């Protein structure tokens, strides 16, 4: 057995089955939240904001809102997916199986990324009900979606291994991701900020995700698309490195 693809399929199917069992939490809740964002920011506030870089405010916030959901859902799905078997003790089976860490990560992160990717596409489809939307670079748009889903699912996987309680599981998505995503230009252009704050914002990795994703829609961005892509790939590489270290040492997994 050189590559345990049966294990990948088993874990992947198991995780996806959980999505169907918890359809309301997994899909419906984030969609409703996003719709409310559109109503509040797009319709109520957006009516008082002029176009940004020639794009109507309602359309401008779509990539940001999709990214917002994608980040939080990727982290939530992946962290819960690995934390729950640790919490219940069923992780013993995965640890004792003839499965490599690469296969474990492909299965868990793949399932989490699939779910958030599907959610991102559903939110995008929902957005078209509110604002006319065209995508300048559909392949790149899909590429950024996949890359972000995978990267933040990996990040969520790390959080799920790090967390030793449900409080910690909630802590990072609530305190860090939301805190990074809102000032990261999800609902505004960072060019609207005073120069000092704009510079500070450039240290926020979410800025590059949203900027790159927005470029795929409108063909223009606050940050060069190459830099956005490089930053996202850099974060992906960092997460992969951390996961490799976790499995090599057995940190929080093996006693």
């Amino acid at each position, binding site marked *: 057995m050189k590559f345990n693809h049966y*294990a990948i399929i*088993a874990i992947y199917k198991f995780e996806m*089955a959980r999505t169907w069992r918890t359809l309301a939490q997994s899909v419906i809740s984030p969609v409703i939240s996003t719709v409310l964002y559109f109503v509040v920011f797009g319709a109520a506030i957006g009516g008082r904001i002029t176009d940004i870089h020639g794009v109507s405010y309602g359309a401008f916030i779509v990539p940001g809102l999709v990214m917002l959901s994608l980040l939080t859902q990727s982290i939530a799905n992946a962290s819960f997916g690995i934390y729950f078997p640790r919490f*219940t003790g*069923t992780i013993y089976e995965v640890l004792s199986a*003839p499965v490599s860490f690469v296969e474990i990560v492909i299965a868990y992160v793949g399932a989490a990324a699939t779910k958030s990717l599907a959610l991102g596409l559903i939110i995008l489809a929902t957005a078209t009900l509110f604002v006319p939307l065209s995508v300048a670079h559909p392949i790149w748009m899909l590429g950024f979606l996949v890359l972000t889903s995978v990267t933040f699912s990996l990040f969520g996987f790390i959080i799920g291994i790090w967390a030793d309680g449900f409080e910690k599981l909630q802590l990072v998505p609530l305190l860090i991701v939301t805190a990074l995503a809102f000032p990261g230009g999800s609902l505004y252009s960072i060019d609207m900020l005073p120069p000092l704050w704009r510079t500070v914002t450039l240290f926020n990795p979410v800025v590059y995700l949203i900027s790159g994703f927005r470029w795929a829609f409108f063909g223009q961005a606050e940050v060069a698309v190459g830099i956005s892509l490089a930053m996202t790939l850099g974060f992906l590489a960092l997460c992969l490195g951390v996961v490799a270290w976790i499995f090599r040492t057995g940190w929080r997994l093996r*006693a």
Partner: protein
Amino acid sequence: MILGFVALRDVSLDIRPGEIFALLGPNGAGKTTLISIVCGIVNPGGGRVTVNGHDIVADYRKARADIGLVPQELTTDAFETPWATVNFSRGLFGRPPDPAYVEKVLRDLSLWDKRASRIMTLSGGMKRRLLIAKALAHEPRVLFLDEPTAGVDVELRQDMWKLVRRLREGGVTIILTTHYIEEAEEMADRVGVINKGEIVLVEEKAELMRKLGRKQLTLHLHDPIDRVPDALADYRLEIAGGGTELVYTYDTRGERTGITALLADLGAAGIRFRDLQTEQSSLEDIFVSLVGRGQ
């Protein structure tokens, strides 16, 4: 330098293919740690383990593919069904889907009727059997049963013993840890005793009982006595049954049991008996004696 708690010390153990090996030890002796190391759940501080010739680190895929583990805790996915979770286990261990085999396992463990029920609705005994079904899902050659009958009623326990025997007949090597000494006595070919992280003893069960077994001879007296005559003091007899019984304890390992001399001396002292019986100490007595020695 080793920091923290040392659960195992210089353990060297060789399990023979196709045997049932019972690992006995008090709580915290290191039984589960030992099993967890072999199964890949705990990283060992040092040493080497091979399973059917496969190193558990260098050749972990082949080693683990041969192993089935039934954990001590009832850890199950509450929202899944037995059918889904046993199929999951089979896939996880790298085996292609085989619905007929999974059905057989579930039927063997009397879980077929519950295959579509949520696991959370199953009784404790059913969950225990389900863990065994999961461990058997990939047709392992070595099965670890970590206290498999803890909290299981007598009938179910005996069903499990039958199942274990069937598996052994099919060539599966079985290593079980248990608190129930009678389980080891009933099932095992060999017994290992572990205490404070050290293997205190490994022995054929029958040999162990023969070598370490103490016997008691109970004499039912014709007339009750209130004290042992001084002439019989060397035998360390105990009076029981309100003076109607005399109990003589002897070691089967001794060249002479002393029974012949005792009976002669009893006659000389004028003590007559109307019946006698002997009783061999159980594995439990042996275990308590071994572990007690290590305290």
